[in-house]
């Protein structure tokens, strides 16, 4: 366990340091559109309409956006605990990163994600595209990271990434990779 903790701390994804707030970083910077939210969840900015991709979650990322992220198999749409999702698996699982994007339509909010995950070894609150967000991993972020972004008082998006190749650039900071993809999805929701 000590080894896992050490690896987690060594990774670029901010490991939680009790009593010491993490510095916020910002990912993405799309122009905001839509109506202003008065969300009790603390989401600042406009509500984003998840229905845009709820019936077609694999439309949440464009081919142009995916190209620089790696080589992927045909995207697989599905439905999970939180809502409709799409999984872009790496063409070669031992080489590239994979990303699963979920439209969180079951009522789970960014604050729920934060409350549930804030005690994890790897956790940070941040902003993505100007929206309240959080990234975490339940182990050491060496191969996985999840980023949730609040899109309204009732919804969020969730990006879960995985990378098996420890030499890949994404492996150095898995949470930066999931935040980068989350920013792209937010950008597409706004556009």
């Amino acid at each position, binding site marked *: 366990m000590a080894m896992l903790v050490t690896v987690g701390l060594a990774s670029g994804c901010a490991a939680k340091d009790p009593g010491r707030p993490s510095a916020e970083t910002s990912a993405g910077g799309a122009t905001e559109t839509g109506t202003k939210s008065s969300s009790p969840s603390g989401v600042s900015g406009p509500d984003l309409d998840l229905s845009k991709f709820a019936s077609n979650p694999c439309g949440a990322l464009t081919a142009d956006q995916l190209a620089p992220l790696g080589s992927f198999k045909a995207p697989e749409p599905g439905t999970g605990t939180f809502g409709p999702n799409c999984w872009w698996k790496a063409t070669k699982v*031992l080489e590239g990163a994979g990303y699963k994007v979920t439209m969180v339509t079951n009522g789970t909010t960014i604050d729920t994600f934060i409350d549930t995950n804030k005690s994890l070894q790897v956790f940070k609150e941040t902003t993505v595209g100007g929206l309240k967000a959080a990234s975490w991993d339940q*182990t*050491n972020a060496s191969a996985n990271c999840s980023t949730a972004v609040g899109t309204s008082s009732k919804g969020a998006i969730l990006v*879960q990434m995985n990378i098996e190749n420890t030499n890949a650039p994404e492996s150095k900071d898995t949470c930066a990779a999931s935040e980068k993809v989350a920013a792209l999805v937010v950008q597409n929701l706004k556009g």
Partner: protein
Amino acid sequence: MALIGFDAITAGGPVGAGAGAGGAIGAGLGASTTKMQVDLAEAPKLIAGLEAAIEKLVEAYQTSDDLRVVPSPGKDPYSDSATTVIRQSAGNDPGGYGWANLKAREALKKTIENIKKSIADYSQTDGSAGDSLTPKD
């Protein structure tokens, strides 16, 4: 048929509390190896199968991450307690599912590495043997 040998990496014995969820995949504190053989011609299929297994483990890991976020179904202490146990079983503590899942993925990756090395060693040995039988001018 040419058989090549390799070390398959397997997990050790289960650890105590929380092994229920993780133990199914082979939660262990230490990895061990098992000597195995495969037909050289079938080795790529074996590698493809192990890679598919890694993909399944990634999917299961993400599902276990989802499970931890599911809120307690009720306000009563029993619901809270059950939710806490589910989160621990799904999480990163030794024996928890997330922990066991990563260990299993590491073991599969190491096994694939060993098979590839064995293929390379065989090719090199075969090539050297062929060269030694080639008449010199």
